[in-house]
């Protein structure tokens, strides 16, 4: 059972506050350095991918299904935004319709994936099917049958002017705060979802699918709903990526993208929501540093995969929580899905 709000002790609130303050003042601190734009850019990327990883955690950590097709949502969300803003001559300058459309797309794709995945009892079959969907969408984007995705080249020059016709998001710093706000809202929304009876049922299904169905839960409906919730937020992250990079490309459907969501989540600790935030921060930081020093990020990424799965499948957050809340040690449960 997730820790209830009343049980949380003071140090945790302090911790949360300090993270919030740091995130708010970070752009100011960056502006004092000589490569402020680059740093802001990286942290925005980190926040968007953290949102992506959190959405993955709903399906993996809570519903206990291993999706290797979450790139569907990231790439799909980005392309929905790119197509609306750039390809079909609507001449919308505001980002809001694109974000909404991406989220709608996410829910629909989530429904499709959930429908297929929930029909398959084997976790491996779920993995293969989700993977195939991402792959198919990536190929469709490259084939470009409707002439709207610009084939191999992807879409570039996506405008980023305003959000909701009021908030300007043109500058890197303004966009930073918008993404920070979206990430925070999404985090609290997702936390409310996983702490609701719906979230408890998902956990029950993850622990024992058969028992849950004997108890009268319609397992497939819950699994589909988990995919839809996940698709909603993941596609939002995709649309934000399109605005952040001002472009999107077929590589966004690559299975390394789906794999990244897994690694961020598992490193931080799956089934915790906070874990993906921690994991994303660490991996993106490592990627920037190692990528710069050795020009061979993938090699290290592979080693991270092996090291994590062999020696730390529970992730970091359970350890952090133990340190912060020694009193609650007995309540901390193993949140690693066993599927």
């Amino acid at each position: 059972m997730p820790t209830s709000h009343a049980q949380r002790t003071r140090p945790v609130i302090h911790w949360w506050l300090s993270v919030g303050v740091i995130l708010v003042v970070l752009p100011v601190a960056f502006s004092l350095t000589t490569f402020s734009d680059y740093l802001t850019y990286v942290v925005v990327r980190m926040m968007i991918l953290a949102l992506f990883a959190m959405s993955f955690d709903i399906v993996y950590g809570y519903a206990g299904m291993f999706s290797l097709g979450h790139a569907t949502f990231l790439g799909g969300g980005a392309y929905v935004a790119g197509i609306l803003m750039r390809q079909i001559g609507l001449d919308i300058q505001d980002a809001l319709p694109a974000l909404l459309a991406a989220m709608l797309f996410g829910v629909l794709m989530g429904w499709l994936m959930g429908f297929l995945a929930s029909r398959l009892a084997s976790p491996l079959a779920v993995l293969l099917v989700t993977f195939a969907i991402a792959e198919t969408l990536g190929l469709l984007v490259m084939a470009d049958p409707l002439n709207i995705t610009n084939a191999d080249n992807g879409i570039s020059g996506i405008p980023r002017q305003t959000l909701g016709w009021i908030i300007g998001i043109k500058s890197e710093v303004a966009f930073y705060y918008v993404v920070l706000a979206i990430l925070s809202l999404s985090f609290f929304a997702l936390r409310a979802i996983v702490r609701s009876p719906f979230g408890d049922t998902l956990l029950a299904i993850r622990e024992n699918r058969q028992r849950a169905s004997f108890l009268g839960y319609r397992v497939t409906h819950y699994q589909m709903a988990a995919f839809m919730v996940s698709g909603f937020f993941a596609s939002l992250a995709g649309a934000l990526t399109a605005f952040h990079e001002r472009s999107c490309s077929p590589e966004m459907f690559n299975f390394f993208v789906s794999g990244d969501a897994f690694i961020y989540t598992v490193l931080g600790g799956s089934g915790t929501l906070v874990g993906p935030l921690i994991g994303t921060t660490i991996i993106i930081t490592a990627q920037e540093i190692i990528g710069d020093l050795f020009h061979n990020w993938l090699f290290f990424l592979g080693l991270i995969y092996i090291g994590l799965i062999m020696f730390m499948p529970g992730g970091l957050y359970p350890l952090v929580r133990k340190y912060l809340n020694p009193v609650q040690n007995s309540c901390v449960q193993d949140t690693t899905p066993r599927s």
Partner: protein
Amino acid sequence: MNLTMIALQTMNGLTIAAIYILLASGLTIVLGLQGIINTAHGFFYMLGAYIGLTLVSYTDLGFWLCLPAAFLVTSLLGAGLEASGIRTLTKWNRGHVHQVVLTLGFAIVGTEVVKFIWGTVPQNTSVPALLRGAISLGPIVYPKYWLFVIGSSISIMAALWIFFHWTGLGILVRSIDINREASEALGTNAPLLTTVIFGLGTGIAGVAGVLAGPILGLDPNMGFELLMVLFVVIILGGLGSLMGTVVSGILIGLIIAYGTMLLSGLAAKILVFGVMIVILIFRPTGLLGRGVAVK
């Protein structure tokens, strides 16, 4: 388009299918026995191709030498991966998904090592002298080497079938597949045999890599790219069934060949994935075999 074109594309489809079937058989044996999908399978295929490239560029005899050499290297490496990593995870009672992720990590690291040794530029290997040229087959003239690939695939699949149905070792492996606990209680050294079979699977992948090199060319991503099609082949075949793999391998090979001729290479691939998704909606157990739903 005429009959000759169709005959030619059918042969092309069968040649590709020959390679798919070899690869998918290794994948599906391991899947049936251990319940895991070896995502490093594509890596072993790629490694086999590069071993072929290296040996062929020395002597003309190289090609004949590199079939066993590639088998040896990739099967030992695969057995090592099983014995050191996957078996440990099994001992720690981890789920199959963890084992899949482990093989994925291994594949990523391995691919980077291959890039480091052989470079990232796509390369080509040549066909051995004995198999150069073409043979006339009724209306079409077909390269000897491509026929050789089809023949090799048939021989290896026949050997596998004989192994599983007519040898003691094969019977033991099947008994593990059906009921591991009962088999072990009758004295079967299941951990060892599992490692051996894993190595056999990756070894066949290595051989498939050598065979495919002169036809499909070499680049470090060839494994990952092919893996996606292989997933479709084994899902359609009904995860874990050898016969199903053969049928679905031929089906997918032909879809890709005809699709490429009528539409484009990209469209053919989309068609393949589309077919799989549609089949899974209406028949979650795949076309043949024990199926996705139960395993």
